[in-house]
């Protein structure tokens, strides 16, 4: 008789989620689904608000990636005003986004994921956390916290505060980089580089001892999507969309973000508030694609900065065509931290960041505007339609975690298949820990993807074909 396993909640990711594992009659895993069971509905309640308020409102979707929302929203506002923002404002927005990449990736690697692969998969969850890392290596724990602190410091220097800075606005930004802020960032850069280099060395040791995880943690063919520059380099704020397949071939390129609906469809599951975007020409689920660090490094031909370019060459050797294992999201994150530091360093010598010309001014010149920016977890779209007074008639948000939804389902199913073969109707403990990490590879932010609030506990259910819950486990 077929069965279903449900995992609920998943710890150390944002929001609340549940995992269902569906069993077949032979006791093997037939399929898996990652459900998000909370709802906030920013898309709906923003209707009627002035578009100019959106960078301030939508950053409240999340306390961790407010910068990503405020930047994508400001870009959508630029499109409604139909302006090109001043060059200094574009660079300052980019600097803010780079700070966001550093802080978010550092948190994901050092605090949320490292406890699993450094302390051991079967260490009890109560010990598999940052205090376990402290006990094993205090210096590493401290370096990780300070690397995140560095990214947060950049955000605070530019935006005036670490969380929810009301700084990016349609048409530009509110303030430039002060001399004091520039000096603080420059002074911290050597330590940030040193920590990142150590983390990269550490990661290479981890890869040698985690061959099985590389093979089974979300290692499957899919499409990849991210922003690139006109010459195909890594891009994080601006540029055009590129899709590649698992052989590494480009299947769609230089797509204006305003035309995203020609390439991306949105499916919904009746068991989850998380939308499941897919590559429209292939349909759902064949059009499954991944976004975020792994995808960005797959679609980019180069990083555009020397140290990260050297690492990118090593990264690309891990795949035949594209790098397809989601376990390598962690490696991609570290490479993106390195690239971010190199770009930040470049900006420290750029006098334009002190310019006072920071805002373009205009009224409503378009009744529709799309803004896209790379958030740490993947490409983020804000799509607004306004009336002649600039009041929002409709809002569509496509966030990274939603775009990775189909891939997360496949990752859970792949890990579960490895650990459950002709099972006895019970959830094996080793599988539970690894399924948790399989989800964590994507560093999902459920606050953003469902516009949900709160922490994310784990609930797993094993379900028979007739719908009976055979076993379930709760954590958190």
């Amino acid at each position, binding site marked *: 008789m077929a069965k279903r396993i449900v995992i609920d909640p998943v710890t150390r990711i944002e929001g609340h989620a549940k995992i269902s594992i569906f069993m077949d009659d032979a006791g093997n895993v037939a399929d898996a689904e990652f459900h998000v069971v909370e*709802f906030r509905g920013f898309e709906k*309640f923003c209707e009627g608000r002035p578009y100019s308020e959106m960078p301030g409102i939508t950053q*409240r979707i999340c306390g961790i990636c407010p910068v990503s929302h405020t930047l994508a929203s400001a870009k959508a506002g630029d499109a409604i005003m139909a302006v090109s923002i001043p060059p200094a404002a574009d660079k300052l927005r980019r600097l803010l986004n780079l700070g966001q990449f550093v802080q978010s990736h550092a948190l994901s690697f050092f605090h949320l994921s490292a406890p699993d692969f450094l302390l051991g998969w079967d260490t009890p969850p109560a010990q598999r956390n940052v205090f*376990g890392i402290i006990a094993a290596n205090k210096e590493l724990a401290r*370096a990780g*916290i300070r690397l995140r602190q560095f990214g947060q410091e950049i955000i605070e220097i530019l935006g005036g505060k670490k969380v929810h800075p009301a700084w990016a606005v349609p048409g530009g930004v509110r303030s430039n980089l002060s001399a004091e802020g520039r000096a603080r960032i420059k002074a911290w850069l050597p330590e940030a580089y*040193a920590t990142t280099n150590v983390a990269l060395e550490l990661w290479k040791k981890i890869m040698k001892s985690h061959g099985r995880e590389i093979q089974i943690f979300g290692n499957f063919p899919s499409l990849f999507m991210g922003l690139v520059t006109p010459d195909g380099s890594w891009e994080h704020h601006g540029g055009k969309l590129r899709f590649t397949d698992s052989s590494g071939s480009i299947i769609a390129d230089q797509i204006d973000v305003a035309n995203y609906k020609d390439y991306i469809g949105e499916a919904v599951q009746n068991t989850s508030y998380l939308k499941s975007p897919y590559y429209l020409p292939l349909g759902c689920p064949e059009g499954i694609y991944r976004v975020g660090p792994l995808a960005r490094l797959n679609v980019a031909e180069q990083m555009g900065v020397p140290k990260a370019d050297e690492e990118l060459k090593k990264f690309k050797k891990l795949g035949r065509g594209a790098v397809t294992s989601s376990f390598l999201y962690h490696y991609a994150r570290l490479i993106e931290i390195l690239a971010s530091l190199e770009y930040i360093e470049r900006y420290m010598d750029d006098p334009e960041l002190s310019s006072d010309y920071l805002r373009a001014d205009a009224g409503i010149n378009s009744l529709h505007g799309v803004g896209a920016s790379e958030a740490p977890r993947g490409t983020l779209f804000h799509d607004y339609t306004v009336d002649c007074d600039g009041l929002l008639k409709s809002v569509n948000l496509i966030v990274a975690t939603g775009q990775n939804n189909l891939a997360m389902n496949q990752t859970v199913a792949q890990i579960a298949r490895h650990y459950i073969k002709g099972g006895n109707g019970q959830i094996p403990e080793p599988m539970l820990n690894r399924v948790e990490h399989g989800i964590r590879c994507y560093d999902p932010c459920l606050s953003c993807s469902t516009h949900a609030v709160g*922490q994310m506990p784990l609930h797993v259910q094993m379900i028979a074909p007739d719908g009976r819950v055979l076993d379930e486990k709760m954590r958190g």
Partner: protein
Amino acid sequence: MPAEKFLAGCFSVGEFLMNTDAPVKIEAELLVIGYGNSLRRDDGVGPRVAEAVEELHLPGVRTLTCQLLTPEFADPIARARRVIFVDAEIVQGSEFKVPGSGIPNPEPATLNREPIRWRKLEPGETSQLMAHSADPRTMLALARDVFGHAPEAWWLTIPALHLGFGTDYSPEAEAGFHAAIVKIKELAGKFCGGHANKCKAVGNLRAVEKPVLS
């Protein structure tokens, strides 16, 4: 391989990283951290208290506001002699309706309590550092274990009855706000040289609300 051994040979940030065994330099006599979501009505009262304390310019007092407690706060916490964490506390029976969720409002709360709760905190090293947010006790443990000093700390909580979307506050949260300011001024006066009580009075909670963007 044990993690200690795995990590032993590969980690050295060397001269760039602060010495983990160096004595901590105290930079604030009293640190007030207000946390919560400023768009979820009463949940925003913690940050609002910290902002109001900042406006008082109390000598020796520093403030931080945030939506969530995150690991990097362990650093400024370690550099304070004393810390007050200010948070909203959900009261049983609170209105907790999310628009569009279909979840009905529960029965109205029956309040029989002080406008604020005041508790001494100790480091809680066994607490799970959940997602991107942490319990104040976990932050104290992080400050002690990673940065070398866990300050004396208290948890000041204010009743939260209305947690829907909005920037206004319930009468209970507003009363808690004013009581919190009085308590923090009293403590600042005790620990920071007795100047605190001479400072200007704090403004009305609603009157200091600012628009998201101008």
